[in-house]
Structure formats: structure tokens, C-alpha cells
């Protein structure tokens, strides 16, 4: 046994088939959870005592922001594995994370701005938390830009992996920005050691949505990894067998 399972992941045909089998197991629960959480969050959860119904944007905003950070972590880990073990499929996983991560980051920024205008009184301020999240978007975009600027696949993999690793420093900054500095952004309501600052009827849809978004990311990642493997292995013999 030993490391055999790990090395089997490194085999493109194996991962290609595994990803294809797993996709529906992520996609369907994700769809059910997201629809259920939307219904519970928008219609069943009570309004907030101060923000009224405006607080409901949290059900998209907070899970998107968490996912953005989580996807960056997955991307950096995959990039690190790819660098250390020279594992091509690990680089394929890292590449597949960037686009989804950038979109979740953008959604968290846009929903935050839409909430910020009526509640804070402004769409945007150069606050530590907001700025760090914007830097996260630029890290994702920079990662993709760097890759598209390098012709040679192996060099693009290594260079972008180093960039992904350097950007990891931004993750603790995002998380702790609201505690280290005076920030206009509120402190964490859920992701903290203490009990959540939210009653169960408001919290449950939020956690459901977090799980739903995570599974959705899993499903999209699997589909994208398959596409990336096809692209990289397009001249390999096993592809012809799979596709015929």
C-alpha cells in the first residue's frame, strides 16, 4: 500500500475517470442545498432587527467570501504539491481553481458593495478587509495572466505555482484584518471560536449555503480538471480510447 494511492492520483487517465464518476455526487447535493438554502434564507429566516430584509444578502455574500479564501488555499496546496512532486495533474488542479476562485471573489465584492451602499452609506472604502479581498481577486487574475503569458506549459506551471504560494500570505490578512485594525467591516459572526452571533434560524441557511457552495466548487473543479487533463494530454494514446 504505502504511497501507491497517492501516485495513482498522479496518473491522468485515473484522475480523469475518477473525476467523471464523482461529479454528479457533488453537483446534485450542491443544487439541492443551494436551492433549499435560498428558500430558507429568503423566505423562512426572520428579518434582522436593524437591517430588516437587507441582511439576507449575507446568504450569498459570506459563503462566497469564505469560498474565495478556501479555493485560494486549495489552489496553493495543489500548486505546492505540483512543485514538490513534479505532479502534472496537481498543476492541472491548481489551474482549474483560479477561474472559479476569481468569480467567487468577484461575487463577494459585488454583493458586499450592494449591501454597503444602504447600510454603511458607501459602495466602497479603502478599508483593510475590503482591500485585502480585492488583492485576492488580483492574485487570482494575476495567476491566470502569468500563465497565459508563458508559452511553455512546464514553465507556466512552475512560475504560477510560485506566485500562488507567495499569495498565501494574503489569506491570514483577510481573516484577521477586522481584528488587527480598526475596520468598518464587522467582526466574524460565524467563523470564530465563540458561539455564533446569530440565532439558529438565521444561521442554518447560511451553513447550508456554505456547504452547497463548497460542493458546487467541488463539482465545477472536477469538470474543469477533466477539461484541463484533456487539453494537456491531447496527443496521448489513452485519450483516443476514452473518446472513441
Amino acid at each position: 500500500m504505502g504511497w501507491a494511492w497517492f501516485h495513482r492520483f498522479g496518473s491522468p487517465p485515473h484522475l480523469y475517470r475518477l473525476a467523471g464518476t464523482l461529479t454528479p455526487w457533488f453537483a446534485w447535493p450542491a443544487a439541492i442545498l443551494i436551492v433549499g438554502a435560498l428558500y430558507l434564507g429568503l423566505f423562512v429566516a426572520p428579518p434582522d432587527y436593524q437591517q430588516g430584509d437587507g441582511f439576507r444578502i449575507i446568504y450569498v455574500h459570506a459563503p462566497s467570501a469564505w469560498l474565495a479564501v478556501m479555493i485560494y488555499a486549495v489552489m496553493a496546496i495543489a500548486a505546492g504539491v505540483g512543485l514538490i512532486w513534479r505532479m502534472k495533474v496537481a498543476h492541472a488542479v491548481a489551474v482549474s481553481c483560479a477561474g472559479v476562485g476569481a468569480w467567487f471573489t468577484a461575487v463577494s465584492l459585488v454583493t458586499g458593495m450592494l449591501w454597503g451602499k444602504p447600510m454603511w452609506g458607501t459602495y466602497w472604502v479603502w478599508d483593510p478587509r475590503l482591500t485585502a479581498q480585492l488583492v485576492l481577486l488580483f492574485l487570482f487574475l494575476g495567476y491566470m495572466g502569468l500563465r497565459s503569458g508563458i508559452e511553455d506549459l512546464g514553465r507556466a506551471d512552475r512560475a504560477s505555482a510560485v506566485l500562488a504560494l507567495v499569495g498565501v500570505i494574503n489569506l491570514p490578512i483577510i481573516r484577521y484584518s477586522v481584528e488587527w485594525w480598526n475596520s468598518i467591516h464587522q467582526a466574524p459572526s460565524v467563523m470564530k471560536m465563540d458561539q455564533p452571533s446569530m440565532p439558529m434560524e438565521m444561521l442554518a441557511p447560511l451553513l447550508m449555503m456554505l456547504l452547497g457552495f463548497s460542493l458546487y466548487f467541488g463539482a465545477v473543479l472536477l469538470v474543469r480538471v477533466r477539461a484541463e487533463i484533456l487539453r494537456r494530454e491531447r496527443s496521448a494514446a489513452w485519450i483516443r480510447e476514452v473518446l472513441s
Partner: protein
Amino acid sequence: MTPRQRRVTLVVGILAGVSIAGALALSAFRENVMFFFDPSQVAAGEAPIDKRFRLGGMVRPGSVDRQAGSLELQFVVTDFQQDVPVRYSGVVPDLFRENQGVVAHGRLGTDGIFVADEILAKHDENYMPPEVARAIKDKHGGVMPANPDLRSVPET
């Protein structure tokens, strides 16, 4: 060292390097990244009095004074140690209310009044339905405590 060990060293080195660089940069920036100054910092002379800066704190209950028929507004920003009176003309955000966080952007006048040209409301991390908020306020003499215990409230 095998090539793989060398690559492990490289990855660990990158992570350690950026962590140290980040920690040093952040501790150096610590003061500059502050989004706002609180009234105690203003009283201690830490805020840039001659420039525009942001003042943050709580709106002191009972201090909001609106001029009827205009957008003129006066209130007191407090951190429960020091107070700074603020004057503002314009529309305030939805969450601007007494005993709520607020961030005012403007200048401190020689008369000690902070003249703001922008008012932002700061929300706290507590979310709850109106009935629960009412129940908690009733228990605490009509005032929302800083860390309301949501478990102490009976389900509505």
C-alpha cells in the same frame, strides 16, 4: 539532498520568506492601516489634526440633534472614555442611529467640533430577529448589550 528534498526546501522557503516579510510589513504599517481613529486617540493627539481623517466610535445615546427642515445634524461620537462632537450636513445611512457604530470623515475644527463631510455607519456582527432584540433589550433596561447572549432568549 535529493531533487525532491530541494524542491520541498524551496516551497517551505517561499512560505517562510513571505510570512516573515508580511509580518514585518504589517507590524510596520500597523498604525497607518487604521481605517479610523477613536475619540481617545483624538484626545491623545494621535490623529492628524491638520488633515482630513476618519473618526470612529459610537453615537452617544440622546446626543443626536437634527435641525428641523434641513439636513443639518449634530451628534457626539464616543468610545465611552472620550467624546468628540460632530457636525454634518447631508443624508445619513440607514444604520445611523444612537448607540450604533459610526465612522465620520472630515476635519477637526479649532473649536473642537469635528466637521464631517461623509458619515458611514458601522454594523456589528450580531444578527437577530426583532422579537429577540426586543426581549434582550427588555432584560437589559432598554439597551442592547455589546455581546448579547442569544442562547438566553426563549424561542419565539
